[in-house]
């Protein structure tokens, strides 16, 4: 888990505009995190990390691709077991997003 966390640290997206929106608190891989109201889940996660999920066959990191709901590459898991398409769904207060893959024996922090 620690190695993986180090690898995926850093942000993919960079905020350029509309940075004065209200803050939304959510949970990213077990840690408290902040997004802005109106962020998609993809934006909320990728402004502080570089991956949304691990690809099920290649085991490689993925971070979405088309941003318009067509490629299906940005499905992320929520802690409650639901999955959602991160480029389409908006972040909600208290949402708990899991970008790491625990299926291979890694334990959540």
């Amino acid at each position, binding site marked *: 888990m620690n190695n993986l966390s180090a*690898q*995926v640290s*850093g942000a*993919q*997206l*960079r*905020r*350029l*505009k*509309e*940075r004065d*929106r209200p803050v939304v608190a959510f949970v990213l891989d077990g840690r408290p995190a902040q997004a802005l*109201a*109106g*962020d*998609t889940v993809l*934006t909320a996660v*990728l*402004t502080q990390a*570089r*991956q949304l999920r691990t*690809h099920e*066959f*290649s085991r*490689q*990191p*993925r*971070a*979405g*691709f*088309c*941003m*318009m*709901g*067509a*490629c*299906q*590459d940005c*499905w992320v898991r929520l802690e409650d077991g*639901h*999955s959602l398409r991160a*480029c*389409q*769904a*908006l972040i909600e207060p208290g949402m708990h997003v899991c970008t790491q893959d625990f299926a291979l024996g890694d334990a959540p922090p």
Partner: protein
Amino acid sequence: MTQGSLPQRAVCQDLPPVIVGAGPAGVRAAQTVLAHGLRPVVLDESPRAGGQIYRRPPEGFRRSGAELYGTEAGRAQDVHDSFDAIRDRVDYRPQTLVWNAQPDLLDLLHAPTRTLSSLAWRDVIVATGATDRVLPIPGWTLPGVYSLGGSQVALKYQGCAIGDAVVFAGTGPLLYLVASQYVRAGAHVAAVLDTAPAIQRYKAAPGMLRQPAVMAKGLALVARLRLHGTPVHHGVRLLRAEGIAGLERLVWEDSAGRVQHTTCSALGLGHALRPESQLADLLDCAFEFSALHRCHVPRTDAMRRSSVAGVYLAGDGAGIMGADAAESSGELAALALLQDRRIPVDAARIALLQRRLAKTERFRQALEIAFPFPREWAAQAEDDLVVCRCENISAGTLRKTALETGARDMSRLKALCRVGMGRCQGRMCGTAAAEILAQVQSIPLADVGRLRAQAPLKPLPVDVTVQPTHEVPHG
């Protein structure tokens, strides 16, 4: 039209016209239907009308239209205002995906509530738009690599750049539009890499002059990039995207054959657009190969009627003609629908819209000369290139499967090696896979056919609520 030869459907005369999609085509269609006294149902996957090109940020964002849409701000505003003016008078259902089509029912998912329902239809205008046409390069699945249109969505819809140092690569007018929007928003654009050789723009100039205003806008975009000092290279070949946890650099070959490395954390990649035609396929519309699009597109007549009675095709979903043409074809499709309902329409208006569309078609041919499809791509694709992002299928697997089994069409290839069978249904890989199949079998692209759409058109959640159907037609 061959309506007489088609199977009879159960038809309920009082069903409202259905419009799928609320981009420029869907909005104009809705407006036209409403203006003739009918109240359409407007189904749209997005939370707000506008489509991808005129996509509106979520509530609470404050950038002006000029900042969001640049030279297209006036048109965007007009489409938005037009829809805002009618939204309370149409049966508008945002965040609603049409995931299946039956001869008299459309199956819907309301995404936020995970509710399934069915809607009876007698006539439907399909205005499903387009997505990027992408030719994969090694490393294109790395975090940081996005489609060109997706890069634009990040900025327009979320106010974000796709990375700290961005390269835009591929070809097409969108390449320059998105790059200049990024520069204007203060992003660092490390390079713009066009696979089209510089000479192509001069060859295309006579045809482009048919729409001098559009051509001038394009030149202004390039001028802005030059003024800003953004490196723009023509006639490049994209070699690979490299990185471990995410993109770190792009390796490419310049027009003189020298290998170049550009450090970047993000890449916007696209080679023009492809029609989003799956719903037309499920509705059983006939398709034909378009040499211009290098793919099969649903067939339409001059009034945007499909081969199926009661199904009309508007906007880029039936062939890429751009946003302005989408407004015209949306209105035209609505007028055809009204005509077929025996409602009087203005013949002069129809003639005007058809003239506009013919003009766009000629301009579109010139764009294809300026930004040609890189035909050498398939032959140059290495065997270990991942073509299908969902199922992780490589170019080598496609070639081996085709050669060992003799598969010569896309449906067979899909059945044999799962290409295009994943969650995106080949939206991202279909173009590339077809090019590779044609290349390895040495047959014309037209002969490899196409991936067929399957319901559900996009993945459905497992824990859905099913709403009973009240609107079943009495046949």
